[in-house]
């Protein structure tokens, strides 16, 4: 193993630019993004709709290739990684996923083992243990024999988390994981992610919309605006009313929670 050579950096984007090809020219999304995730980092990525948060995640998985700059994983440019090797290390919880009908939760979570598959038809005991652990970690163990199409929004999200965890990733990318979830489920889900990061040393990058939720969840917040990372640091420093006005064009007031943390309050709409 090359453990001794491993740096603390898990993945990085260096001067990354990306534009979607469109019939009438190109739509520039990222101009020059620099972002580095250290091993064990827990980072919330925020920004307006269309600011390129999902694009950034897709660049990190290699599904998209940057027009300029370089994306690295474990120090090596993503272009040097085989898709299968990357899938053994990086898992994604997508913003939207159409689940196929008729599969049971266990079968779907089993699909998360695909990059580790060793046998042509059978799964290994390691696969079955990983699936059980992923289900337990995601709090989805009681859903094991249910059909995916019968799940509620919160249960469905737990299934998707379990699928991603079954990959046994080192880096977990979450694209708006709290979308469609009520407050209790939002807190429960992010609590699970945070605990996994604390216990397993997972590195996590999560796209979030709720700034207060991001501040409560992540010790580090990165803000994407106009194709660049315009702020990156602890939420107490980064999420100021001034910056929120600049990035989102919305007036917010600053309040303090009883334990001294900053809270951003909307003015009456």
């Amino acid at each position, binding site marked *: 193993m090359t453990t001794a050579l491993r740096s603390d950096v898990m993945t990085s984007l260096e001067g990354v630019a990306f534009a979607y090809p469109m019939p009438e020219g190109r739509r520039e999304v990222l101009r020059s993004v620099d972002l580095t995730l250290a091993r064990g980092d827990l980072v919330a990525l925020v920004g307006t709709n269309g600011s390129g948060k999902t694009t950034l995640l897709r660049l990190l998985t290699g599904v998209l290739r940057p027009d300029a700059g370089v994306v690295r994983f474990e120090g090596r440019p993503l272009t040097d990684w085989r898709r*299968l090797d990357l*899938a053994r290390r990086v898992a994604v919880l997508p913003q939207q*996923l159409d689940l196929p009908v008729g599969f049971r939760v266990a079968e779907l979570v089993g699909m998360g083992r*695909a990059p580790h598959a060793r046998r042509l038809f059978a799964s290994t005991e390691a696969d079955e243990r990983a*699936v*059980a652990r992923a289900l*337990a970690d995601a709090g989805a163990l009681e859903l*094991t024999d249910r059909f995916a199409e019968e799940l509620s929004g919160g249960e469905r999200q737990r299934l998707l988390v379990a699928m991603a965890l079954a990959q046994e990733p080192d880096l977990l990318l979450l694209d708006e994981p709290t979308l469609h979830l009520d407050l209790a489920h939002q807190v429960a889900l992010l609590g699970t992610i945070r605990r996994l990061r604390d216990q397993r040393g997972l590195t996590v990058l999560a796209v979030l919309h709720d700034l207060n939720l991001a501040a409560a969840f992540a010790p580090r917040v990165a803000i994407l605006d106009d194709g660049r990372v315009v702020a990156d640091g602890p939420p107490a420093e980064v999420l100021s009313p001034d910056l929120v006005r600049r990035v989102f064009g919305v007036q917010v007031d600053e309040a303090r929670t009883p334990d001294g943390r900053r809270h951003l309050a909307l003015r009456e709409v």
Partner: protein
Amino acid sequence: MRAAATASTTTQTVNTGPSLTRVTVVLGSGAILVLTAMVVAVAIGSVGVGVGDTLAILGHRLLGLPLARSVAPGAESIIFDVRLPRVLTAMLVGGGLGLAGTVFQALLRNPMADPYIIGTAAGASLGAIAGLMAPILLPVLAIGIGSSWLGLGLVQVLAFAGGLGTVLLVYAVSRANGRVPVVTLLLTGYAVSSVLAAGVALLMFFSGQHLGAIFGWLMGSLAAAKWTNLAFAAPLLTISAVLLIVRWRGLNLLLLGDGPAANLGLDVEREKLMLTMLATLATSTVVAISGTIGFVGLVVPHVLRLAIGPDHRLLLPASVLYGAALLTVADLGARVAGGIPVGIVTALIGAPFFIWLLRRSRVVRPVVTP
């Protein structure tokens, strides 16, 4: 999420695939069904040969067992030269259509998909009809019409090439920025099929005395089954079936969508190309020896998905066995009904059965929930 802290230390396992018992029951019943249908279909015909005699003849010719003297003279030839090739063709064609239909429904994430959907049928039809009419179109070909190429007639060769060539064209046209979106593939297939169908209609308009033959081919028939055709089709179908069945994992992942499949390590574009070409190879082979038999490739995957679930690990081999059994029985019906094209039987019985099934199942199951 409450269980997270306590359960993470357990060493239990969760089974993610079909149990061995389930696999044995599903595939075992399928195999028994196919073999039973085969023996019955070989035994029944205008000249009655009992099941016992049929088994004796099959045992004699296939396994080298001694033949009992009681078997009627001529029966051996009827069984071995006429009925057996036809029944084996029905099995191959049914299995190929069931398998290709299953692959296309998953690949295109569309419950309406069948083996013909992206242009195989239209291309093969145009090829076959051009072959049937070759003597009129190009009188010089009339000399070659009776000759064969690799044991195949001109019609079969052109049908096979037409089906395969059309899909290659559709796939190339659908490609943009190194990707082939399935919706584009479907729509391009539909558009190209329409153009080719116009060509088919035009040829039929000028076909004169060939119209009957053309129509029979379009309906799909196994009446022309021959050992030489089987020698061409069996290896191609076996190879494509094996290569498709071992791709079950990729097919399952593609049901999640291109992006999620890529994140699970699948080389999505390569896999889609492989699956499309293998399923098209199977379909074109089948169509070349039987014409365009409808409904088998649509119904078999749906019935099986309702009965045994959508996991392609079991669904793909099952679709071969149950597709083979279905068409063997349907062709027996076609022969008993006075030799009508088997395509009429599959449409006449298959379609109402399919409607009944859709109404009976709690929900009409699409392949993917939006």
